[in-house]
């Protein structure tokens, strides 16, 4: 399934931040999202994931296809690693969590409570969640924060395997993951504001 974005303008707190976005994400491809801090990368990912409506423009092929990983991992500290993963697996209607445990080397930690994990281990668990969703388009927001070198490698391998299976990924990151992917720099799409005396509609 190809994700197609046409003439998209997105807002944060009612103010347009990015405009005129056009791109397509084909199956088997990765797209690396670049741009300075605060430009609206997170907002773009949230808009594509369907958490907020775009101001103008269309998003095609995203419905029920996206697995979204934000800055926070949505883990419950009093549940074990297995329980956390199994919960998300059953919410998304998939059954096996073993591949996810393998891919992120979580087998030894399987019975530990998520609250007792280190920051990097939690992040690995959060990323393992992407595998159990069974969704084809991954959207990751700064996925490598607090990961060490080995873990980054694990993550890159997982993405590569996902792409090989016909999935696709949109990743906002500043690290070179060594992926065969295109780069989308949104810096050029910074929204230009209209004239000051435009008093209508959105107050801007």
């Amino acid at each position, binding site marked *: 399934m190809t994700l197609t974005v046409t003439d998209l303008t997105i807002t944060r707190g009612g103010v347009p931040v990015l405009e005129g976005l056009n791109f397509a994400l084909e199956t088997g491809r990765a797209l690396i999202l670049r741009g300075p801090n605060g430009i609206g990368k997170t907002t773009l990912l*949230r808009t594509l*994931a*369907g*958490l*907020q*409506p775009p101001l103008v423009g269309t998003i095609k092929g995203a419905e*029920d296809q*996206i*697995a*979204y990983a*934000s*800055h*926070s*991992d*949505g*883990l*419950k500290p*009093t*549940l074990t690693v297995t*329980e956390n993963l199994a*919960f*998300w697996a*059953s*919410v*998304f*209607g998939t059954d096996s969590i073993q591949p996810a445990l393998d891919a992120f080397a979580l087998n030894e930690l399987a019975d530990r409570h998520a609250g007792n994990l280190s920051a990097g281990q939690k992040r690995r668990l959060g990323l393992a*969640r992407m595998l159990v969703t069974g969704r084809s388009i991954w959207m990751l927001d700064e996925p490598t924060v607090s990961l060490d070198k080995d873990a980054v490698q694990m993550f890159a391998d997982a993405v590569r395997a996902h792409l090989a299976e016909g999935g696709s990924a949109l990743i906002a990151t500043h690290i070179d993951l060594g992926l065969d992917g295109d780069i989308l720099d949104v810096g050029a799409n910074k929204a230009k504001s209209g004239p000051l005396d435009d008093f209508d509609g959105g107050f801007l």
Partner: protein
Amino acid sequence: MIALLLRDLKLAFRAGGGFGLGLAFFLIVTVMVPFAVGPQSSLLATIAAGVLWLGALLACLLSLDRLLALDWEDGSLDLLATAPLPLEAVVTVKALAHWLTTGLPLVLVAPILGVLLNLPAPGFFWLVISLLVGTPALSVIGTFGAALTVGLKRGGLLLSLLVLPLYVPTLIFGAEVARRGALGMETQTPLLMLAGITAATIALLPFASAAVLRINLR
């Protein structure tokens, strides 16, 4: 849906999950009442039904700010919103879990506290019935309030301010059933009204809660 319910129950029972806090609060409030109004058993018998209803309502209210706020803080709500589960189902399950961990235990211990307050014998049956029928409405309305205030820091006080007026009809009819039952009067009308409110809130309010949650997630 069942997975979500099981997870919420599991979280409530594990350490720090807050199960039992509502119960303890209910117990303490009820025990404090005689200290405030005096120990005459006739007076206590008159107000017992109302005090127990009010105590149960406050105990419900107390646990509302954890209902969605925890899932909001750790990002689980974002993920649930992108999951195949509709948000209407999510808030319904959340309300059900809240009722199972807060409302139902209150219903079960209310008769014991009724003994402490000298509740007249015929009142016990109607107290349990009215709480059993009424507390689900409290959980569902409370979920709506929690969804409204989920994005706010220190939203707890505001949550109470918003939810308490919405609790008025439930409290009036619920306490009326228990009070009339204790006096041996006819209880059918208020009980029907109470059941009507509960049924209508369960059927309709999750849509409002889900809509409000979507707005907050934006």
